[in-house]
């Protein structure tokens, strides 16, 4: 990545460009070094363009409310019936028995906290970190269950049977979309205060 403090050959290239010399020095043109620097510049330009799009924060608003709603809905049955959820966790055969109940007791409340934070716009980036972390865990668990060939329900929203809600690559893809949404909120999300400022000014 970009070096700070120490001058880089990129600086020389840039400075020469400003002074009217323009482009990479002849000796560098077409070399792998010049291509590498050009790639870095293109990547940085891409980041600047992505970052400077003014509508990100407005897109992030419904995304975070939707994601929060999903998590609030998902945690509901788990909080009401922790025993059932513990069985769902045990079915994945991923955790040792001593950790199953601990996860079944704590995870739904973390989902509840993340969901509320997203919907209400409180520390949305922290909530996005929680949501993205949980999504990575869920996807890993689903892939593990698919690898074992387990014919079971994902237990994400209700402890329904495998016949009505079986795990599949589609379930993993759905979680992948939610992970993408979580990352989007992490990078471009806005909390309640900032949204209010934008609305009032």
């Amino acid at each position, binding site marked *: 990545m970009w070096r700070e403090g120490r001058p880089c050959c990129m600086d020389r290239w840039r400075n020469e460009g400003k002074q009217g010399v323009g482009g990479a020095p002849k000796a560098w043109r077409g070399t792998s070094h010049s291509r590498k620097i050009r790639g870095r510049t293109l990547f940085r330009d891409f980041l600047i363009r992505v970052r400077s799009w003014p509508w990100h924060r407005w897109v992030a608003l419904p995304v975070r409310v939707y994601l929060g709603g999903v998590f609030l809905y998902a945690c509901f049955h788990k909080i009401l019936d922790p025993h059932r959820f513990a069985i769902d966790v045990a079915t994945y055969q991923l955790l040792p028995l001593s950790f199953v109940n601990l996860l079944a007791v704590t995870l739904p409340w973390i989902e509840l906290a993340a969901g509320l934070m997203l919907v209400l716009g409180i520390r949305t980036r922290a909530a996005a970190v*929680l949501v993205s972390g949980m999504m990575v865990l869920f996807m890993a668990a689903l892939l593990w269950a698919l690898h074992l060939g387990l014919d079971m329900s994902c237990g994400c929203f209700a402890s329904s049977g495998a016949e009505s809600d079986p795990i599949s690559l589609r379930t993993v893809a759905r979680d992948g979309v939610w992970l993408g949404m979580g990352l989007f909120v992490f990078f471009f999300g806005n909390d309640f205060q900032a949204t209010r400022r934008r609305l009032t000014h």
Partner: protein
Amino acid sequence: MMPMRAWTFFGRHWALSAFRDAAVAGFVSALVGSSVNLLRPDGIPFIQKTEYAILVPCPEIKGEARGISPKDPRIGDPAFILIDARSREDVTAWRVPNARSIPYDYLEPVSSGVIKDLLGVRAKGIIVYGDGESPDSGRELARELAGKGLRNVFYVEGGAPVLHGSVEK
């Protein structure tokens, strides 16, 4: 323009504070969850001592295998792989000489390693015998192997009890 890293481009401070806040929120909510579980009458123990009775549907078997008589000469033919689908205890008690033991589990599919091993052996076919009960574990295993791409898979009708008699004679 000052050169910058992609990390600082997005802002290092808010990223770090987001991770810190997430850790705090996660810890507090886990604490609340644990407290509620302690207080509620239908709370579960934090550490489970006994295994959960997990109910999963049996894997669907898609293949089809043909049954053969226990007196079929192919059973003693070394060109065929003979597989015993019964449990380890039953196999220890008695088995047909040279038969491989692959205990059939109605809930667990046959591992891919076993399938690879069988695919790697050059044989005219596979003959499976099981416990001879209803459903016969030998027939089920033969169907599963056929469903996983193995050809010329047969099962012994009546399974080990019938086969035991005919082999002894």
